[in-house]
């Protein structure tokens, strides 16, 4: 749809510094824990120290006797509320009833058993230690493959095989593909459990108003509207009596795309004590009680011809679900299956998922959510095939890429890739590093005993999640644009940004479409009492879907503005430019503020036109978008210590059209940091009893500034035909592209020693053992 804006300079594509930053830079933003209210109480949760146990007795009296303690609630108090919802539906899915507080049994370390409410957070914490719980400890299982073995402890006694579901998907003729194959490579590949670790932990403030039976709930969440709907269900409260507000949110990465026990629990507490109550998650709780990511054991088999033509891919996927289903837990591995062919044109796949209960924290959507696992798998398998065929890994990829004239491309997994030019970022990245020269250098390095690797990953991803039929709760997004009587513009978006910068990118879209100054635009989000229903921010959807909803709302609004402008200028049609309606024939114009004022004053109205200037649009996307790119990583491996150093990190990403290059660069850098964290350092480690050994930031190796390489980031721009902005989404690209490039690079460095695969994280110990000729 063409814009009628004649403003010479547009903001689309410009590096605009963010409009949300002043409050963040001065410490004056209001995050959850900054909320204070008169009479506010503080809650602390009593949690199980055991991964599996029966609760024999629970004595809360000593805690209640502590001065300052207002109330203690246990499982018996909340047994009729809930359950905590799982939005995923799969055939035959076994879903354990997920109570807000444990009833007679606990299923994981950190399982909430009781809540203490006090006038002060120190008193609440003191009182937690006064609650006496007598546990009968039961056998637990923390490893998903062990959980599937006969005789393993049953996480949920009613399902002794620990299997929550099995899921089969097939496309093309997989049997035929393997029958034709001249070579088949097989590999077991894991994607370890990760802890999302937003810098701000979760938190909830609940404030019950008995007079009108309404509840206001502040939560550090990515999905305020979905939370309101689902929470109303848990509490048995009319949805329109519940208002959910997201204050400033200090990061989410998928971990706040959920509905958690504490959100319902604080609502319940405030209703019972008649006071506002606050709960803020400790980091220890964050590691135990907020969802984890990944947790895959994947068995891949790739069939090919000797000339490198890939024919088919088989996958057996074991997903560690943890003890319960959170909002999307069982759905995440199905996303891996959708993405398993990567950027390659073979049309035969077969996947079998087994979802396994363990006595661990539930897994769910963490940055990439199923797609990093799939991309890691296919990109490792391509390199393993290249090694087997003694082909250059770049050449093998080129040979199998979907061609740039083959879009839309129907995949064997049922997707229609929207647009792409997969060779372009690969060739751009390889030219950037001078690939042939590096391969020569590698030969010389090897001759002198040095270990140097060059690793590629050419990734694709599924973004703009997504068309409603493909999602559990609607995949559209909404926007309302109002031109106020003074001519200033207010946008209300159903997206819920929490660091992604959409207060800025959305204002850029408005400024361009209406031809106004960006400083006249305010973007509002995250309050269900103010903003029309929306879905939220996750799955690289904010701009691609929320921005598009805004674009269409603006088109409607422009139509109305023009009617009023034409009426005032007494002409047939006007253009919008420079904050004015302009009659291009006479050159006469009327300022925007005057048009707005006239629309609200309504002394005279254009035919069939309502007073006021407001437009709302709910946009349903016809398809996902499919960004892609190439990451190339050059590593040096220390033969004596197994230490991996990244010499260069080159990322060429194609996320479609770019609205704000500064923000896109930030998303790529942050995404790569999380991918690199998985590749080299991070791992949620459980012992065999289900104790989380990496249970604090002291024991979990998050990337720090001195550990990160310089990321050389650039872009190719292949517009998406799915939306009029041509954007695809970039929030998860860095994470998805990164880990296979790093692992491929290190395996490449060690390949002449007979190393074919290494599972993440690539700790020096693991790498050193392989160099010594041992096993990782």
């Amino acid at each position: 749809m063409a814009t009628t804006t004649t403003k010479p300079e547009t903001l689309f594509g410009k590096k605009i510094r963010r409009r949300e930053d002043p409050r963040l830079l001065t410490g004056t933003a209001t995050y959850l824990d900054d909320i204070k209210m008169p009479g506010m109480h503080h809650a602390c949760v009593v949690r199980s120290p055991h991964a599996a146990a029966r609760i024999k007795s629970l004595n809360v009296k000593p805690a209640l006797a502590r001065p300052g303690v207002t109330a203690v609630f246990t499982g018996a108090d909340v047994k009729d509320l809930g359950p905590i919802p799982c939005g995923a539906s799969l055939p035959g899915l076994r879903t354990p009833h997920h109570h807000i507080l444990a009833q007679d049994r606990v299923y994981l370390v950190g399982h909430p058993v009781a809540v203490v409410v006090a006038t002060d957070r120190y008193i609440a914490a003191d009182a937690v230690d006064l609650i006496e719980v007598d546990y009968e400890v039961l056998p637990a299982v923390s490893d998903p493959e062990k959980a599937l073995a006969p005789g393993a402890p049953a996480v949920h006694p009613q399902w002794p095989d620990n299997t929550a579901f099995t899921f089969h998907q097939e496309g093309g003729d997989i049997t035929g593909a393997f029958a034709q194959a001249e070579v088949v490579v097989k590999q077991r590949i894991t994607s370890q459990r990760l802890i999302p670790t937003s810098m701000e932990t979760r938190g909830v403030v609940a404030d019950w108003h008995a007079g009108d039976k309404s509840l206001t709930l502040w939560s550090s969440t990515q999905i305020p509207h979905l939370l309101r709907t689902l929470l109303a269900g848990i509490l048995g409260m009319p949805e329109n009596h519940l208002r959910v507000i997201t204050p400033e949110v200090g990061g989410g990465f998928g971990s706040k795309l959920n509905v958690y026990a504490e959100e319902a629990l604080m609502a319940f507490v405030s209703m019972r004590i008649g006071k506002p109550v606050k709960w803020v998650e400790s980091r220890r709780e964050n590691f135990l009680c907020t969802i984890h990511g990944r947790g895959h054991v994947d068995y891949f088999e790739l069939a090919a011809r000797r000339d490198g033509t890939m024919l088919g891919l088989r996958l057996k996927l074991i997903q560690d679900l943890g003890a319960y289903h959170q909002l999307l837990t069982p759905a995440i591995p199905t996303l891996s299956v959708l993405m398993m062919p990567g950027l390659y044109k073979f049309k035969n796949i077969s996947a079998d998922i087994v979802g396994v209960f363990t006595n661990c924290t539930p897994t769910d959507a963490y940055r990439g959510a199923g797609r990093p696992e799939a991309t890691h798998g296919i990109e490792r398998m391509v390199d393993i095939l290249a090694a087997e065929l003694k082909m250059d890994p770049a050449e093998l990829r080129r040979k199998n890429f979907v061609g740039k004239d083959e879009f839309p491309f129907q995949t064997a997994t049922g997707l229609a890739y929207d647009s792409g030019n997969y060779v372009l970022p690969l060739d751009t990245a390889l030219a950037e590093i001078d690939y042939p020269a590096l391969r020569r250098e590698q030969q010389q390095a090897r001759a002198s005993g040095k270990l140097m690797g060059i690793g590629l990953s050419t990734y694709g991803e599924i973004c703009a999640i997504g068309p409603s039929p493909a999602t559990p709760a609607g995949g559209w997004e909404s926007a309302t644009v109002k031109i106020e009587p003074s001519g200033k513009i207010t946008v209300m978006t159903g997206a819920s940004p929490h660091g992604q910068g959409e207060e800025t990118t959305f204002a850029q879209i408005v400024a361009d479409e209406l031809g106004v100054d960006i400083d006249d635009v305010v973007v509002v989000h995250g309050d269900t009492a103010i903003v029309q229903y929306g879905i939220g921010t996750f799955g690289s959807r904010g701009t691609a879907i929320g921005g598009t909803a805004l674009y269409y709302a603006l088109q409607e609004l422009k139509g109305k503005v023009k009617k009023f402008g034409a009426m005032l200028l007494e002409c047939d049609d006007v253009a919008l430019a420079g904050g004015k309606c302009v009659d291009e024939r006479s050159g006469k114009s009327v300022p925007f503020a005057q048009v707005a004022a006239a629309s609200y004053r309504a002394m005279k109205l254009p035919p069939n036109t309502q007073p006021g200037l407001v437009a709302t649009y709910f946009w349903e996307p016809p398809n996902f978008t499919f960004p892609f790119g190439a990451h190339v990583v050059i590593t040096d491996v220390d033969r004596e210590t197994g230490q991996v150093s990244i010499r260069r990190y080159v990322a060429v990403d194609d996320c479609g059209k770019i609205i704000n290059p500064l923000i896109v660069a930030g998303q790529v850098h942050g995404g790569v940091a999380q991918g690199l964290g998985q590749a080299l350092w991070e791992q949620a480690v459980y012992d065999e009893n289900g104790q989380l050994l990496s249970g604090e930031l002291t024991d979990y190796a998050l990337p720090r500034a001195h550990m990160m390489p310089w990321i050389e980031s650039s872009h190719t721009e292949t517009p998406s035909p799915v939306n009029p902005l041509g954007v695809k989404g970039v929030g998860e690209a860095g994470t998805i592209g990164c880990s296979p490039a790093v692992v491929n690079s290190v395996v490449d460095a060690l390949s002449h020693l007979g190393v074919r695969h290494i599972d993440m994280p690539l700790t020096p110990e693991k790498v050193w053992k392989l160099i010594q000729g041992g096993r990782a």
Partner: protein
Amino acid sequence: MKRTIALSINGKSHADEVEPRLLLIHYLREMASLTGPHIACETSTCGACTVMLDGKAVKSCTMFAVQADGRKILTIEGLATNGKLDPLQEAFWNEHGLQCGFCTPGMILTAKQLLNDNPNPTDEEIRKSIEGNLCRCTGYQHIVNAVKAAAAKAGA
């Protein structure tokens, strides 16, 4: 049981009765009503609670409020002068050195200490100096750019 402490926060005098076990971060947030210093780990690992104590960046989750008695504290709220942002705040803004913003106040004050000690740091020195401050959003690259830009501006 409670003890009286008197200290200066962002140039203003404060006197309060506090429990000896009260952490400085809780004093600053709950009693002095500041919202800049944040709590993100409680184990001294992340640096979100960083403030300047007598001109040195410290993690206020690992100090008791009573240990700040008689001392001068600067938090992010006190960094701008007369509404004009500090060059570091300005540089973090220009270079997109923040996303969710939760680590930002601590990150900026740690960088402030670096630039006080070393006005022309190399990339390597910047990365080493902020290694005690975790950021999960930016991958640190724009933060390094911001600190370099602030240093260049001060030196210009």
